[in-house]
């Protein structure tokens, strides 16, 4: 493997006895879009701030192109950043905001003017060069902040929940813009969010943070289809968690009503057998067609037709509620409330923890 572009090595940050981040390691390739996803307080922003230089990690190192960043002050790191809050300089116009990092670097005026024009074109705000920040919408302000952060061609762009203050529709619009700008500039992006959909939409890879650690690192597909832990399974997408008894001899799990599922994915279960937690995605269920192996019987207590799929709530024999999403082809014979239903799923889609 070639030398990683940005290498985060065993970062740890403690405040007194409180551990904010522990032993976070991550290698990022040039031009990659990596998202730190996780609930608030999981250490994702702390890790980002350590890279920005706003806090010094208690232990560990951050290397950019093989050189440690930790002894370099923030203003010399040449890193771009877009913040969660609006951080445009309130007394400067849009053009002056974008020009600020270039003026600080004492670049010639002609170069600055050309670069500011190019950056405003990149974020499609050419016509707003003379506006003041207070006269702009939140979405426009964040686009100017993006232009300002990219004006000095930083090797890395950090984004700390830049869209969390915007409404959903605007958020999706700017996500598309960010994706386009990433493709056009090829800049390496580290993006922090607590919104799984945003992470899945934008990222090449996702680092899922929990309690100060990276719980799993991988593509969105990896995290959804092969969650490494119960936490990942619960955080990404919707899941049904059931209790079962594992028998190692025939790789089967027995549900409380006696239904046995054979050949489940066991790579995340420790040695031994007995009580385990198993996860089945709502969209992995199918109507039982008479021959498939596991046959899980329940009563439909609620159905919601949502076009792309039908959402069911199914009460199992042992009294647990299952969330089930049936795709269109299973909709031919409509399922009705109160009806008894038999479900099945592919054993490899059942994951035990």
């Amino acid at each position, binding site marked *: 493997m070639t030398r990683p572009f940005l290498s985060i090595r065993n970062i740890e940050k403690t405040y007194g006895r409180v551990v904010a981040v522990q032993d976070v390691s991550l290698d990022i390739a040039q031009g990659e879009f990596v998202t730190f996803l996780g609930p608030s307080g999981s250490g994702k922003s702390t890790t980002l701030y350590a890279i*920005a230089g*706003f806090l010094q990690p208690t232990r560990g190192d951050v290397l950019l192109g093989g050189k440690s960043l930790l002894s370099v*002050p*923030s*203003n*010399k*790191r*040449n*890193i*771009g*950043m877009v*913040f*969660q*809050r*609006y*951080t*445009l*300089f*309130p*007394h400067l116009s849009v053009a002056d905001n974008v020009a*600020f*990092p270039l003026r*600080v*670097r004492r670049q010639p005026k002609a170069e600055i003017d050309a670069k500011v024009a190019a950056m405003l074109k990149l974020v499609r705000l050419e016509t707003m060069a003379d506006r*003041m920040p*207070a006269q702009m919408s939140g979405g426009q302000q964040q686009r100017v*902040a993006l232009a*300002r*952060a990219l004006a*000095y061609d930083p090797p890395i762009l950090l984004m700390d929940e830049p869209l969390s203050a915007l409404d959903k529709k605007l958020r999706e619009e700017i996500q598309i813009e960010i994706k386009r700008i990433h493709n056009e500039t090829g800049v390496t992006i580290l993006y922090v969010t607590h919104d799984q959909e945003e992470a899945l939409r934008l990222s090449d890879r996702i680092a899922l943070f929990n309690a100060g650690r990276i719980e799993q690192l991988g593509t969105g597909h990896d995290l959804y289809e092969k969650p490494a832990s119960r936490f990942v399974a619960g955080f990404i997408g919707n899941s049904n968690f059931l209790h079962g008894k594992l028998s190692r001899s025939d790789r089967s799990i027995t549900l409380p009503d006696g239904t046995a599922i054979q050949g489940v994915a066991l790579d995340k279960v420790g040695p031994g057998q007995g009580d385990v937690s198993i996860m089945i995605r709502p969209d992995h269920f199918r109507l039982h067609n008479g021959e498939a192996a596991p046959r899980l019987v329940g009563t439909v207590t609620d159905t919601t037709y949502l076009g792309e799929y039908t959402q069911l709530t199914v009460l199992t024999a042992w009294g647990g509620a299952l969330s089930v999403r049936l795709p269109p082809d299973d909709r031919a014979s409509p399922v009705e409330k109160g009806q008894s239903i038999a479900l099945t799923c592919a054993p490899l889609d059942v994951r035990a923890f």
Partner: protein
Amino acid sequence: MLLDFNRLGGLRVALSAIAFLVGAFLLLPIVVIVLLSFGSSRYLQFPPPAWTLRWYEELFDNPDWLASFATSFEIAVVVAVAATLLGLMASFGLARGRFPGKEALRALFLTPMVMPVVVLAVALYAFFLRLQLNGTFVGFVIAHTIIALPFAIISISNALEGFDKSIEDAAVLCGASPLEAKLRVTLPAIRSGLFGAAIFSFLASWDEVVVAIFMASPDLQTLPVRIFSTLQQDLSPVIAAVSSILVALTVLLMAVAAIFRRGKPA
């Protein structure tokens, strides 16, 4: 709103009348002084029998009054600068710092505003005797800066607390050194607070009389001190003229402060 002025019905008249009376009570003495300064009567007869600019002429012909004007103005300008600079540094500490006893320190900084001025004056007088600062320009500036500092700190720390530190962080990541980020981003962003601090510090010194009486020497008297000592000898309409100029300058500065506050970015 529960107490909407437009829905008060008959009470509106009463409320307007009370507001008018309070306003008149506050403003009338000032109006009378200004009118008297243009009146021809030597004994401050009201209403004035005739109008004249004689007292202003007398005032501008008297080198003692002019010297006091200059003294007051110079002291107030230096105090405005000193209190604003000190207030800025103190405000950064109070708004950004994290240390035990911060709230106690904030209260301590504001004590000159609540402590009886005469106590402060006596204490400073006794202290300055040892340092031989009584009757000196430096003594005046130090004493008035102490009085002005709470106004400066309140004005600047309000502005600083309303300013998102992330904006300064953004400037630092853009390549500005921490000092450069403060000079080029933070200070311009809180400029209305800085101007407010300067104006209120200037005024705090400009019309201060108690401490000034203790600090003054025959050669170094601020305007309020000279008004006070002149009043003890005779009641000349020149004093009304001086007072009118004091009032005019104060109103002017308050207006400037109000304009700056309105111009503050939302």
